[in-house]
């Protein structure tokens, strides 16, 4: 029997048939006749003047065909390019370098080896300048001004605020209890297993095709057209299989542009693929928020107000990937799962001599920063009030009947039901008995902690009235064509990077059309064939393109109904869509399947009706979606070494309607592991000269199967009221929610020693040092 594989079915991922056999087709698998290789000379200095670039020796290296410098790009006005946040960044520099690892020149050769030898032979003479590494120092009066090219001689980029400052200050002043806490959310890197790269080729008619590691191929095509002045029909961006994106493959990196110029200059296809160190030291970073938050409550434990001030270190240019109107992303979801009446948030963007970025590492837009802040503050405040953190949350959650809920900072939460999710997590983990165990252990001098995070996400950007990137509205699209034999092809404006779109989109269409998921081919990523869309990031694929799939299918059903009526010789009004087919009301045996209807659409359609069966939909979501969850983590700490062991971690997620439970579980496992990584391991540091200290996987620690805890997952289901199938998106919830649960657990284990906060990553050294300081080792 054929399985429909509709919504809610844990069918196996269609794409895995190629992935698990090593048959994926990634950028680096693309081989073209006559293809050349590009490698990049990078700056050893974080801040320096370029005195000269000597390319003579490099050009003599056997196999080297060309060396490209900033001044070579200047003629085509390509030495600089715009960033997604309307700042500008260098493709290749002419006068100055702004961060260690910055692209300085590029070598094109007939092999990777020759290109690398060419890079080593390029001689650049620099005059070192004082680097600005610390964003607080960057704001000091006498700090060197980094962006000499800008009219405003300051390292301050922008100030952004939302909420009522005066009323929030007054409410905090009137609060019985307040706490203020500094939090640093360090610079981290998405470290997708596939680094960035592209193959650029011009055909005989001057059409450019770029196979590119991008999460947003359509937007990239438009950016290329606008920046390079190429006609848009002569640009084809193909995003083949992508080995992880997590936000890091949204920006346009200089390497892409240089590869296109190199292909134009040499008349050959040119491949550029970063190595791991290049990826870590120069691709867009995430986080790097220096936060000060103040929270207040009444004596009885009712929350009153929240105030958050943040310094955002953006590196040398604001190249964040945020919607245009939101320079700090959706950080103002920071009121989280709680009904603050007063709140105020301000963020100041600052230039430093570091790589640009500020991309969202699997967290919508700055939502991890927000969730971490509020969930940490809630715990610190509960501690000050002497209340149990679970009880304190339960007492303060936005009540279910308050939805749709308008937050003090302007969001309208579509739906939520926070209490049952936390209760479920508490029941699974045995919260009350864990608290008893903790009391016993403390008596014996053993360190154990329990941490909760009851986060609210905000994803699915977004409604066109508010959301755009470079003016492009953030809708997304689906185009479905049903073949005469009842099979179908569907194309989307998004682009999977491993999320399983080929399966989940097929499942939505299967449910809506009655065609088995395995009979529906899903394609994305080729701008010549797929409909226009803004791409995949911010957990937006299901909320936008997934909705477009349902809407396009429903358009098809409207036409299919007319064909079914024609075939059954009844009036369309006599038909109903039931059990995945059209049947006559009250006569379920008399009906037509979509396969029968599809065949008729090409062979026996009603006179006067167009042949064929297809539809497209550009879906503009009416609102964002607000997934949520409650996570509970239990840790044990080794007093001798400071090592933290996550004993248990229960994740209860609510992402609305679930399309494929197995994929959702996989997404949560991956997200939790990335959240664990941020909490325990990952940080990109710089020395005083601006040298990156996490430039390899020896120094930038990723969790392996050895470090990763065993995850326990569960769900509640609160469908989105405005999404066609009630889905909300889940790709990022776990990365957003996990860090606070882990840190809260560690701090809880040490709270009796007077510890109220530890900045992430929580390394054994930090914990051991604290234990020494508190005399508890």
């Amino acid at each position: 029997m054929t399985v429909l594989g509709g919504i809610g079915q844990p069918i196996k991922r269609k794409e895995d048939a190629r992935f698990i056999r090593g048959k994926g087709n990634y950028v680096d698998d693309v081989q073209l006749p006559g293809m050349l290789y590009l490698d990049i000379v990078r700056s050893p200095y974080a801040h320096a003047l370029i005195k000269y670039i000597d390319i003579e020796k490099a050009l003599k290296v056997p196999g080297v065909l060309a060396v490209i410098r900033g001044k070579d790009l200047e003629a085509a006005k390509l030495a600089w390019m715009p960033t997604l946040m309307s700042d500008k960044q260098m493709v290749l520099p002419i006068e100055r370098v702004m961060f260690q690892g910055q692209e300085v020149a590029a070598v094109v050769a007939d092999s990777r080896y020759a290109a690398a030898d060419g890079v080593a032979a390029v001689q650049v003479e620099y005059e070192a300048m004082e680097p600005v590494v610390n964003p607080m120092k960057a704001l000091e009066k006498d700090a060197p001004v980094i962006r000499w090219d800008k009219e405003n001689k300051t390292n301050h980029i922008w100030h952004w605020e939302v909420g009522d400052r005066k009323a929030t200050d007054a409410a905090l002043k009137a609060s019985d209890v307040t706490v203020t806490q500094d939090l640093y959310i360090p610079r981290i890197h998405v470290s997708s297993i596939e680094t960035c790269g592209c193959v650029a080729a011009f055909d005989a008619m001057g059409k450019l095709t770029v196979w590119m590691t991008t999460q947003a191929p359509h937007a990239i095509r438009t950016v290329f057209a606008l920046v390079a002045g190429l006609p848009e029909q002569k640009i084809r961006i193909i995003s083949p299989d992508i080995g992880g994106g997590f936000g890091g493959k949204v920006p346009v990196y200089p390497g892409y542009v240089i590869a296109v110029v190199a292909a134009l200059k040499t008349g050959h296809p040119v491949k550029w693929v970063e190595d791991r160190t290049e990826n870590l030291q120069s691709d867009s970073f995430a986080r790097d928020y220096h936060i000060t938050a103040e929270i207040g409550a009444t004596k009885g434990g009712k929350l009153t107000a929240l105030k958050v001030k943040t310094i955002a270190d953006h590196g040398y240019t604001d190249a964040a990937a945020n919607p245009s109107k939101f320079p700090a992303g959706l950080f103002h979801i920071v009121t989280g799962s709680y009904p603050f009446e007063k709140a105020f948030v301000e963020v100041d963007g600052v230039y430093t001599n570091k790589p640009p970025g500020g991309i969202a590492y699997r967290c919508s837009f700055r939502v991890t920063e927000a969730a971490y802040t509020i969930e940490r503050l809630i715990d610190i405040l509960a501690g000050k009030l002497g209340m149990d953190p679970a009880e304190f949350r339960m007492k303060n959650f936005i009540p279910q009947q308050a939805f749709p809920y308008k937050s003090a900072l302007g969001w309208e939460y579509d739906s939520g039901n926070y209490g049952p999710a936390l209760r479920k997590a508490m029941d699974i983990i045995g919260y009350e008995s864990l608290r008893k165990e903790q009391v016993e252990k403390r008596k014996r001098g053993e360190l154990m902690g329990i941490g909760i995070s009851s986060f609210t996400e905000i994803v699915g950007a977004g409604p066109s009235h508010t959301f755009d990137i470079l003016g492009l509205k953030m809708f997304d699209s689906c185009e479905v064509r049903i073949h005469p034999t009842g099979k179908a092809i569907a194309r989307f404006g998004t682009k999977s990077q491993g999320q399983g779109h080929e399966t989940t989109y097929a499942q939505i269409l299967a449910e809506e059309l009655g065609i088995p998921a395995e009979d529906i081919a899903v394609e994305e990523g080729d701008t010549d064939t797929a409909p226009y869309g803004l791409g995949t990031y911010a957990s937006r694929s299901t909320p936008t393109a997934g909705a477009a799939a349902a809407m396009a299918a429903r358009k098809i059903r409207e036409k299919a109904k007319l064909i079914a009526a024609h075939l059954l010789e009844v009036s369309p009004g006599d038909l109903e869509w039931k059990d995945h087919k059209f049947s006559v009301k009250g006569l379920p045996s008399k009906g037509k399947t979509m396969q029968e209807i599809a065949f008729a659409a090409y062979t026996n359609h009603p006179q006067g009706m167009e042949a064929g069966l297809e539809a497209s939909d550009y879906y503009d979501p009416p609102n964002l979606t607000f997934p949520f969850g409650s996570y509970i983590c239990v840790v044990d700490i080794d007093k001798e070494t400071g090592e933290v062991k996550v004993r248990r971690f229960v994740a209860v997620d609510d992402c609305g309607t679930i399309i494929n439970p197995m994929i959702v579980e996989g997404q949560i496992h991956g997200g939790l592991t990335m959240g664990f990584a941020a909490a325990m391991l990952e940080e990109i540091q710089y020395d005083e000269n601006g040298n990156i200290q996490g430039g390899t996987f020896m120094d930038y620690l990723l969790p392996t199967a050895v470090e990763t805890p065993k995850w326990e997952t569960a769900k509640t289901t609160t469908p989105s009221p405005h999404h066609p199938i009630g889905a909300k998106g889940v790709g990022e919830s776990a990365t957003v929610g996990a860090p606070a649960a882990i840190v809260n657990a560690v701090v809880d284990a040490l709270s009796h020693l007077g510890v109220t906060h530890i900045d992430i990553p929580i390394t054994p050294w930090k914990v051991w040092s604290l234990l020494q300081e508190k005399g508890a080792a």
Partner: protein
Amino acid sequence: MELEGSFTVRAPRDRVWSFFMDPYALSSCISDPHAFEVVDENHFKGWVKAGVAFIKGTFNGSAAIVERKPPDHARITAHGAGMGSAFDVESTVDLSEAGGDTTVRWKANVVLNGTIATVGARLLKGTIDKKSNEFFENARKKLETA
């Protein structure tokens, strides 16, 4: 990175001074493969093959004696680049004599940039300590056996 050290050599100060002002003598104390040429009495340029851990390669560079106060004080700077890295060294050497022996006190401020500072960071201090000790130990031996 600030480094300093001292050692005592069984040789009169004048001889130690001439040794440290002689680029050929100093060159003979560098164990890594290298070559140099004298631009003028205070300026030298050349290359050295060196590295930290697995980051090894050729650094092109120059050195200058920027201050001479015979017979006891000199300031020397050096700059080099290669392998996606760059280094700058500013060092002083001070000599004092007691009972026919000379004590050499040296200080160096080493600024490293690029790959070598990034990838080799954890191994850097150890390598630099080892290299500078090796250099001065070679100098001591040569002065005492000459």
